[in-house]
């Protein structure tokens, strides 16, 4: 079938063997779907050839980075998967102008390892460091410091991608990057991202007995331009971490206004902030969701989660939270979704809308995306059914 024609770029880069297909039936969401073929392009030219061929044979493609999507976007029944795992080189690092050029299959962990050596870092720390950079940009993932540094696409200086018809683009504006949103109409082939020296921070560990006091303080802190991040931890998780049975905020500032200023102690606190996910997962909280709510509705979110035995942590400054449901409470999943809708919140800001959260997409945004899909991927070759229902 397509395999014979894709032997244009090496038989080891195309596979329909049983073991390979089995390894791509899953992603981080709990749905199992078996693909029919997997393709690993090694260059932009390979990507173009694959997309052109897919158009000619009317075979849609599913784009996959590291398969860490929680919204069932990385696999498809009887579909062809185009994976960026072998587009994994970091082509250039410039220390004077502070940017890095790389291919989309580089893992965030690998990138951070290489940058740590030269005292630089990507100012974006999402929940998991296992995802690919391409996936991060496509989903516009937020990180712990998004209050000050923005999300993934805000760090992109230049982006090259191939659209659904096989045409190549190189763009710099965020608006022009819209075709690659969740791989809807474009496959990223190269990105140039901003890097910076890790900032010197001071921290505050703030504990509150009631939510209203906490929100008052948060409101004041978000207005301060020196606030770097505001991490919220719910009561039970604070207790597990050793902070006592109260609502905790870990606040970090780019100046020395925090109570903890010594470098070792600040590092200790930030390590704690990064270990929250691990602490919660260790206790059997299996389902992870990404609600986003306004500051006014944060009170409702926190009390609801506490009442129903969910764990909650997140960036209270931007409203991007992570809610954890225990494995035994699977029936709470739809209840949680309707609750989020009731308080005008959204699911899908951090993990993407994918196939599971399409109903949370803003209608204005939906219209925009439809137009872009029409322009860049008329045949619906790339990621059909993801984020919008085109045709």
């Amino acid at each position, binding site marked *: 079938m397509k395999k014979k024609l894709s032997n244009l770029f090496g038989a080891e880069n195309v596979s329909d063997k049983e*073991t*390979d297909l*089995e*390894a*791509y039936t*899953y*992603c*981080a969401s*709990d749905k199992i779907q078996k693909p029919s073929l*997997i393709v*690993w392009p090694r260059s932009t030219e390979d990507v173009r050839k694959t997309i052109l061929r897919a158009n000619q044979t009317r075979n849609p493609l599913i784009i996959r980075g*590291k*398969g*860490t999507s929680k919204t069932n976007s990385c696999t498809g029944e009887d579909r062809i998967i185009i*994976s960026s*795992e*072998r587009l*994994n080189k970091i082509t250039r690092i410039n220390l004077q102008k502070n940017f890095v050029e790389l291919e989309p299959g580089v*893992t965030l*962990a*690998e990138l951070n390892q290489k940058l740590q050596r030269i005292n630089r870092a990507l100012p974006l720390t999402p929940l*998991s*460091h*296992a*995802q690919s950079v391409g996936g991060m940009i496509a989903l516009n993932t937020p990180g712990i410091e998004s209050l000050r540094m923005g999300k993934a696409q805000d760090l992109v200086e230049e982006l090259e991608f191939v659209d659904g018809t096989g045409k190549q683009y190189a763009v710099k504006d965020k608006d022009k990057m819209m075709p690659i949103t969740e791989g809807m109409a474009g496959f990223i082939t190269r990105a140039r991202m901003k890097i910076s020296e890790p900032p010197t921070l001071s921290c*505050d*560990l*703030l*504990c*509150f007995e009631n939510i209203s006091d906490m929100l008052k303080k948060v409101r004041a802190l978000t207005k301060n331009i020196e606030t770097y991040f505001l991490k919220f931890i719910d009561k039970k998780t604070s*207790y*597990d*971490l*050793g*902070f*006592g049975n109260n609502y905790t905020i870990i606040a970090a500032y780019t100046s020395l206004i925090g*109570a*903890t200023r010594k470098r070792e*102690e600040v590092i200790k*606190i930030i390590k*704690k902030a990064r270990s929250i*996910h*691990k*602490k919660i*997962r*260790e*206790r*059997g909280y*299996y*389902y*992870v969701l990404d609600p986003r709510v306004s500051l006014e509705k944060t009170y409702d979110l926190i009390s609801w989660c506490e009442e129903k035995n969910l764990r909650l942590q997140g960036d209270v400054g931007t409203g991007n939270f992570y809610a954890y449901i225990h*494995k035994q409470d699977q029936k709470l999943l739809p209840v949680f979704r309707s609750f989020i809708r009731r308080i005008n919140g959204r699911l899908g800001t951090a993990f993407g809308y994918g196939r599971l959260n399409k109903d949370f997409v803003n209608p204005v945004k939906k219209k925009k995306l439809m137009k872009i899909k029409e322009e860049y991927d008329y045949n619906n070759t790339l990621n059909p059914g993801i984020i919008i229902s085109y045709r």
Partner: protein
Amino acid sequence: MTKNNFKNEKIAPAQDINQCNLCGDCNTNCPVVRVLEKETRGARHKAFLARKKDYKEAFWLCTLCGACIQDCPANIDIDCLGIREELVKKGNQTKANQKMRDNIKLYGNPFGRLAGGKKAGDKETKEYYT
């Protein structure tokens, strides 16, 4: 209101494989995934198979380095060693492993008849068993 004590931190024991939600953190430092540049037979694939107790050849492709256990946020041990015991009970073993086992039975070491005193220089390390 600012407290800095980390006392009373509770440590949870290691979780069993059913707590795995296939998040993919185990693949970040798995040598097999890093080198073969694909998901197949990597750490997460093994966790996927272990969850449904589908024990196959994939479990022989592991150096038992432990990077996956270290990276897993839920402290899950895929327990390749235990699964390999199950595979052997079902009769699934590799040829090289059989040879190693026979050598140990007959000569007390995995290499074979070198125990008798035959000299093996440092250059002859092509064949050995781990």
